[in-house]
């Protein structure tokens, strides 16, 4: 049956399709018509707009909290910063690439600092174009972490750079705030060089650092990984 030229029939079928009384073979045939008939799909949407508000003729009832928890789990939304965690694997992958670079650098620095404090950790942090932006050196004996900016990294006056250790599992740990040029000395604790640290990252945060104690809120500008020197 051709329903294209039968306007009253199209209207009636679209209405009963939405109401639900169109069933069985008739409904399947109608589904078939919908496939190649945009005007018919339009009719269906108009009937949905007319009849769907009937759904509101039921009293609102608050669902239990576990319903949202279930949705969150099924969609893997996690509490807050899903984006940050999702991109973690990507950084780890990049981290491997920059490790090779860092190893080269170690030799250069290592030979120049024989008389200096014992540097046993080095990391280079690079930007999105793999340009080195920061060099980190760690001295576990003196518990000192030095962050040196290579060149300038201009930061707006209401922003600040924040350094993070990203563990294999759990929340990133803040290691401190950075200046936008020159050198910054921070304390080096096990939170910065533990075996579980997968990556170091620098994010752009509001002045005073990330308002979220569990991780960065701004974009990640630089990243890299520790190389153990000795």
């Amino acid at each position: 049956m051709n329903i294209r030229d039968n306007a009253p029939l199209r209207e009636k079928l679209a209405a009963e399709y939405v109401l639900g009384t169109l069933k069985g073979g008739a409904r399947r045939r109608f589904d078939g018509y919908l496939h190649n008939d945009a005007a018919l799909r339009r009719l269906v949407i108009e009937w949905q707009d007319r009849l769907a508000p009937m759904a509101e003729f039921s009293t609102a009832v608050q669902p239990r909290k576990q319903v949202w928890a279930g949705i969150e789990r099924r969609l893997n939304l996690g509490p807050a910063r899903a984006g940050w965690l999702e991109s973690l694997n990507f950084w780890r992958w990049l981290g491997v690439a920059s490790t090779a670079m860092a190893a080269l650098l170690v030799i250069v620095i290592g030979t120049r600092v024989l008389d200096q404090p014992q540097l046993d950790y080095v990391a280079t942090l690079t930007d999105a174009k793999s340009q080195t932006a920061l060099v980190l050196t760690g001295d576990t004996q003196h518990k000192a972490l030095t962050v040196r900016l290579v060149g300038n990294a201009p930061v707006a006056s209401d922003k600040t750079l924040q350094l993070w250790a990203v563990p294999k599992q759990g929340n990133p740990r803040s290691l401190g705030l950075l200046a936008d040029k020159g050198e910054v000395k921070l304390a080096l604790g096990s939170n910065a060089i533990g075996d579980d640290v997968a990556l170091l990252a620098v994010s752009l945060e509001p002045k005073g650092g990330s308002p979220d104690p569990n991780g960065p809120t701004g974009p990640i500008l630089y990243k890299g990984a520790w190389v153990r020197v000795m």
Partner: protein
Amino acid sequence: MSDAHTLDPQQLRTWLNGAALHDAAAFRSLYDATSAKLFGFALRILGKRELAEEVLQESFVAIWHNAGSYQSHLAAPMTWMTTIVRNKAFDLLRRSDVAAEIDGDPFDAAIMNALHDPAATPIEALELSRDAKALAYCMSALEGLHRQVVGLAFFHDLSHSEVAQQMALPIGTVKTWIRRSLEKLKACLAKGDRP
């Protein structure tokens, strides 16, 4: 809960667009604003809290995945979401062989009263969106039994013959009532009638 405020279509559209971009916070706001209404609807269809919760969960998973294909110029956001909930609820009934209990009144008592006699219970006083109020006005202009037949079909996924059985009416009568009621509703909604 102020529905007029929280169910503002423009706001819902913004959140849906956010969900399409995988903005979890926008999705949460959408859930907070609409879940009670959608849960009440699922509960009305299914009658059991556990089933309604399962359907609500499945529906929001679908909303998240399909938000990108939601076309705001076609359907109102609540229309789109209630259609998803309704389809999921009917799917679950078919899948699980659970028979939903069908009582004679497809709507809650407050709505039934307002539809029956808007002079005694003003439709304005109900917590309904603008679209739902307009539909309520038009449905109140239908005869009581006709309204009940339309409501039964909508809430319980019934065929003409199942409605006929439920109401102990000849199937021809049911078919005619439904066709006429739908025609009247269309005309009334187009005019924006206030009976």
